[in-house]
């Protein structure tokens, strides 16, 4: 390969990646700029920072019990994430480690179940949850999402990379299967769990339709429900909405940056 063609190649790579980076980042910049402007300025498409940030925050706090809302969202997301990781990783491990023809069939069927739109299941689910006396509880929000087909798939893929020697050694040491899972598999798959944490946390933090249907009282509101209510005005205040949007995006962003290194490593494991 000659020097010049290498230079052109890198020039192309850098310009493509820079363009992609710009396109990816710009809406975030737009969101932050918007939060500092008035609603009228945002509608006119102002692209520079303004001085309205504090006023927007103040008006948001007037309308919304932010502490409560965040606590609700965070509680739901944390509980949902922990339970989903546990149940779905158990299943992913089980499907991969202990093969049987019936379970392979079931596994294949799961992919098809993934494609049923939620709208079709909402009314039956709601009837079930209410007749169990769980309407308007956080339990009802979390329960249906704990066994996530997507995460089961993900863990099964990742388990393919789990070294069989580790498991054999543990068996020789006399560990039971659940102990192997708990003490050998889970620590060894830390980064897989980290990656799944990000994905599951994002899904449950941003969950909208089901919490909307199940939760009835204002004390139970989550941040996505609040944003939806804010946008409903005849004259929506976009400054306030964008402040709420930033607050709603921050936790997932922070989590991503904290777990980023393990995330990439975890994804790596899942496709081996």
């Amino acid at each position, binding site marked *: 390969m000659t020097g010049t063609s290498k230079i052109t190649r890198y020039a192309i790579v850098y310009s493509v*990646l820079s363009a992609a*980076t710009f396109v990816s980042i710009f809406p975030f910049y737009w969101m932050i700029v918007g939060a500092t402007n008035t609603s009228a300025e945002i509608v006119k498409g102002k692209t520079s920072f303004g001085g309205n940030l504090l006023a927007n925050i103040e008006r948001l706090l007037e309308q919304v019990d932010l502490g409560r809302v965040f606590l609700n969202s965070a509680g739901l997301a944390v509980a949902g994430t922990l339970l989903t990781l546990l*149940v779905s990783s158990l299943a992913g491990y089980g499907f991969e480690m202990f093969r049987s023809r019936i379970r392979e069939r079931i596994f294949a069927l799961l992919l098809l179940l993934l494609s049923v739109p939620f709208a079709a299941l909402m009314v039956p689910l709601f009837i*079930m949850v209410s007749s169990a006396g769980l309407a308007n509880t956080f339990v009802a929000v979390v329960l249906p999402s704990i066994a996530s087909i*997507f995460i089961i798939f993900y863990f099964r893929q990742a388990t393919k990379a789990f070294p069989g020697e580790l498991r054999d050694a543990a068996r020789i040491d006399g560990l039971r299967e659940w102990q192997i899972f708990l003490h050998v598999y889970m620590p060894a798959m830390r980064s897989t769990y980290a990656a799944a944490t990000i994905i599951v946390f994002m899904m449950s933090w941003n969950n*909208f339709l089901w919490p909307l249907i199940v939760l009835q009282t204002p004390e139970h509101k989550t941040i996505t429900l609040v944003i939806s209510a804010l946008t409903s005005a005849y004259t929506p205040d976009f400054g306030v909405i964008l402040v709420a949007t930033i607050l709603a*995006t921050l936790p997932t962003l922070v989590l991503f940056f904290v777990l980023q290194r393990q995330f990439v490593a975890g994804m*790596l494991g899942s*496709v081996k």
Partner: protein
Amino acid sequence: MRSKIAHGEQINGWLFVMPALALLGIFLVYPILWSLWISLQVGKGSNLHFGGFANILRLFGDKVFLHALTNTCVFFVVQVPIMILLALVFAVMLNDAKLWGRGIFRTAIFLPCVTSLVAYSALFRSMFESDGVVNNGLMALHLIAEPIQWLTDPFWAKVMIILAITWRWTGYNMIFYLAALQNIDQSIYEAARIDGIPARARFFRLTIPLLKPVILFTSIISTIGTLQLFDEVNNITQGGPGDATLTLSLYIYNLTFQFMPSFGYSATVSYVIVVLVAILSFLQFLIARDKK
């Protein structure tokens, strides 16, 4: 002894998958069976009665359904390949250990998928106004002479929805490819390079075949996502202008919540999506197998 071990394996196998299967049985399979039963009911609101296959017959005469089906297929056929190709290209570029700043690029391109659907839809809508920042930018670069009517022209509205989904999900798919690429033994590439195989041929003849399982997985997930496309069209265009971006999921939503509720029929339309996913996933499996 051996059969005892096998027996133990069986029991353990079930024990590990049981919690998930039990929950899926209660919260997925049971509602699915229930909604299949509902899909055989006709009537308005709470006045439902058994109608047999009336809802399925109704599909064929329903122009709006056929229109939504066409739109959904257009989104699927155009968007999924573009996104997967872009994700692959980015991943291959970022797989170069000598590339300076790859961590920054990788993070930046992945970042869109941490935004919530409600939030990013609101952002895109405001950016694509006719005198919004996208048009202003394109005009400043002299790429266009007058503003594109992103939200009010049927063609450009489709383009904008495709841009929005691509923005949100390309980085997500890229991470899968990037991870897969890092597992490929670099010596294969070295050998190919020494043999004088050009970069493009290496991409198509080496990279893509090696990544086939991951590409299959992501394309099935993307297919399901695109066929269930709802939040973006609901929040950005409401299916407009003039039904140009109406998707099957949005139509199901309208049938359930906006129109006189005919829940049986909307459940029937839902199962059209399931059948489509089944067919398309099967085709994707076939294609992946053939090339082996």
